[in-house]
C-alpha cells in the first residue's frame, strides 16, 4: 500500500481525510507573512502586550526582533516561571525501528541511505525499557521510521503496552496514523503524539520528500487533529529549522498549534525546535542554516505567543545552549539519549538518525537542572 507515490497535496487511498479548515488557515496565514516588513515599533508593541496575537507573533519572529533578543528573553523567562514555576520535565526517546519507506533527502533514515537497519523484538523493547526505567525516568517517547509493514500498528501497540507498564507517560513519534489507529494506541497506553511537518511550505515539502507516504503533505499536516480525535491527551508540533525559510516555518508551526489549541482547548500543546544537523549524504543541500541566535529567537517567540505550551529542547543542541534555555523558554529536556535503534541496554541494532551534541546521562542533566535553581520533574501525568 505504500508503493504508490502520492502527489504532494493529496491523500493515498488508505489515508483518512478529515473535514477541517485548519490547513487552509495556516497556509493562508503563512503566505501573508512578510517577515521583512516588520519594524522595531511592532516588536515593542508585541513585547508590551499581555496576550499576543498572531500579528505580534509575526513581529517577534521577524528580523526586526533580533535586536530585542534580550528583552524577549527576560519576558519569556517570566512567562515560563509563571506557567511552569521551577519545573523542568525529563524524558528520553527510544528508537525501536529505523526501517523507512520515505525518501526525505535530509534524513539519516531515508530509504535510499545504505545504513544498518534494525527493529527491536518485543523482548528487546522490554529490555531497553527496563534499562531506561532504572535511570528513574517516567516519561518516554517511542520512535520509528515510517514502514507500516515492518513496524506495523500491531507491533506499535505491543511496544506501547510494554512502555505503559514501565512509564506513566508514553508518547509516540511514529508515522502519521488514522483516527482509529490513534484510538488503538491510546487504549494500549499512549497519550502523547509528536508529528513534525518539517517544512510548512508545500513546494519545499514536495522537493525534500521525494517518495513514500510522507510525500502527502495534508495527511501529515492533519495528524495532530486525528490524534486528538483518537483521544490522545497532548500533541507536539515542530519544523526542521533550516529545511525551508525559518521565519515562515516557525510562524506556520506556531499558528498550527494555536489553531489546534483553539479548536481542542483541552489538548496539551507542545513545540519542538529541531534544526538540521550533520547526517549522512548531507552535501551542502541546505544553505538556510539556522544559527543559535535565530534558534533562540524562535523559542522565545513561541514562549511569548503561547505561554502555556511545553517547549522541548533537543540533544541536537550543545549542552551549554540547552542549559541556558531551560527555565527561560524550554520546559522539557531529554537525557541519556541514543538515536540509533535501542542502545540503552544492548548495543544499537541500527544506525543513528542524526548526531547528538549532548550525550549527558539522566543524573548529569538532573544535576544541571538543580544547579540552575530549577526542579527536575520525572512524573507529570497520570493515566486514568
Amino acid at each position, binding site marked *: 500500500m505504500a508503493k504508490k507515490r502520492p502527489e504532494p497535496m493529496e491523500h493515498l487511498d488508505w489515508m483518512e481525510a478529515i473535514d477541517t479548515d485548519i490547513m487552509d488557515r495556516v497556509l493562508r496565514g503563512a503566505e501573508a507573512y512578510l517577515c521583512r516588513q516588520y519594524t522595531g515599533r511592532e516588536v515593542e508593541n508585541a513585547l508590551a502586550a499581555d496576550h499576543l496575537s498572531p500579528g505580534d507573533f509575526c513581529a517577534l519572529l521577524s528580523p526586526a526582533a533580533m535586536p530585542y533578543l534580550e528583552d524577549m528573553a527576560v519576558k519569556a523567562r517570566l512567562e515560563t516561571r509563571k506557567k511552569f514555576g521551577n519545573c523542568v520535565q525529563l524524558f528520553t526517546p527510544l528508537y525501536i525501528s529505523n526501517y523507512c519507506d520515505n525518501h526525505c533527502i535530509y534524513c539519516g533514515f531515508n530509504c535510499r541511505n545504505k545504513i544498518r537497519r534494525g527493529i527491536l523484538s518485543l523482548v528487546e523493547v522490554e529490555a531497553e525499557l527496563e534499562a531506561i526505567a532504572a535511570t*528513574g525516568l517516567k516519561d518516554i517517547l517511542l520512535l520509528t521510521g515510517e514502514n507500516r509493514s515492518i513496524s506495523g500498528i500491531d507491533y506499535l501497540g505491543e511496544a506501547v503496552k510494554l512502555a505503559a507498564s514501565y512509564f506513566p507517560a508514553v508518547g509516540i513519534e511514529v508515522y502519521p496514523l488514522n483516527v482509529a489507529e490513534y484510538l488503538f494506541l491510546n487504549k494500549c497506553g499512549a497519550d502523547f503524539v509528536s508529528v513534525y511537518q518539517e517544512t510548512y511550505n508545500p513546494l519545499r515539502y514536495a522537493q525534500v520528500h521525494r517518495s513514500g507516504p510522507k510525500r502527502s503533505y495534508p495527511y501529515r499536516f492533519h495528524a495532530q487533529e486525528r490524534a486528538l480525535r483518537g483521544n490522545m491527551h497532548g500533541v507536539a508540533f515542530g519544523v526542521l529549522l533550516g529545511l525551508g525559510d525559518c521565519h515562515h516555518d516557525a510562524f506556520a508551526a506556531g499558528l498550527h498549534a494555536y489553531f489546534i489549541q483553539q479548536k481542542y482547548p483541552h489538548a496539551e500543546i507542545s513545540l519542538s525546535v529541531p534544526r538540521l544537523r550533520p547526517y549522512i549524504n548531507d552535501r551542502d543541500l541546505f544553505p538556510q542554516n539556522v544559527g543559535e541566535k535565530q534558534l533562540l529567537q524562535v523559542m522565545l517567540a513561541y514562549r511569548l505567543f503561547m505561554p*502555556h505550551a511545553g517547549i522541548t529542547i533537543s540533544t541536537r543542541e550543545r549542552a551549554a545552549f540547552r542549559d541556558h534555555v531551560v527555565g527561560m523558554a524550554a520546559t522539557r529536556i531529554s537525557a541519556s539519549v541514543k538515536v540509533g535503534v535501542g542502545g540503552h541496554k544492548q548495543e544499537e541494532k541500527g544506525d543513528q538518525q542524526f548526531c547528538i551534541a549532548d550525550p549527558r546521562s539522566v543524573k548529569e542533566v538532573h544535576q544541571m537542572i538543580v544547579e540552575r535553581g530549577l526542579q527536575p520533574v520525572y*512524573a*507529570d*501525568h497520570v493515566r486514568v
Partner: protein
Amino acid sequence: MHDLLTIGKHDFRSRFILGSGKFSLEMIKAVIEHGGVEMITLALRRANIGGEANILDYLPENIVVLPNTSGARDAGEAVRIARLAREIGCGDFIKVEVIRDSKYLLPDNYETIKATEMLAKEGFIVMPYMYPDLNVARALAEAGAAAVMPLGAPIGSNKGLCTRDFIKILVDEINLPIIVDAGIGRPSQACEAMEMGVAAIMCNTAIATANDTALMAKAFKLAIEAGRAAYLAGPGRVLHSLAEASSPLTGFLEE
C-alpha cells in the same frame, strides 16, 4: 481561644494553604516552616511514588496532604484520580480540579459539580476549585463540598482579586469556608481577601517564583493573619456624606 479553620471534621490553626506544583522540592520545608503552613497540595500526577523527586519525601509528617485531581478533563477522570490518591495513602481530602482548557487553566464548573457529588458520596472531604459563580457554589454545597475554592485570577497570573465582587457574594451567601485559590500574587492581595471574610488562601506561584521563597512565605503568613484579624475585628465604617446642604431633598419637611 484559637480561631480555627474547620474543613470537614478537621481543624487547622493556619489559614494558609500551600500549592506545591511550581516549587523546587528542596525549598518546601523552609516555606512550610516560615509560612506556618499545615496543609499542602499534591498533584497526584507529579507524585512519583518511590521514584526520584517524590514530593512526599519532602513533606514533614504533621502536614496534611491535599491531593488534587489536576490532569482530569472530566468528572470521571477526577473521580479516578481521587481514588488513586486515597489508594496511595493520601487520606480523604481531595481538591477537585477539572480543567478542559490548557491555555487559561480555567475550571469546568459543570464537571466539577458532578465530580464533587460523586466523591462526597464516597466519603471524601471535597474541596472543589471553581470559577466564582453563586449558583455553582450553591450546587457544590448541595453536592457535599466541604469548602469552595474560587479563583481570584487565572492560575499563575499573580493578578490578584480580579473576581473580588463575586468572591464577596460567595462569602456572604455560602455557608462553607471560601478559600481563594489561584491568582493571588502579593501578600497585600491575600490580606484584602481575608479582610473580606474569606476563610483561607491557597498560594503557589507567588511564592515559588519569589527571589527569597522562605521570606515571601513569611510575608504571606503575616498578611493572612493580619487580614483575618481585621475581619474578626470588624473594619471601621467609612462614611460617605451624600447630602448637599444647599438643596436638601428632605428640606420640604421643614416648610
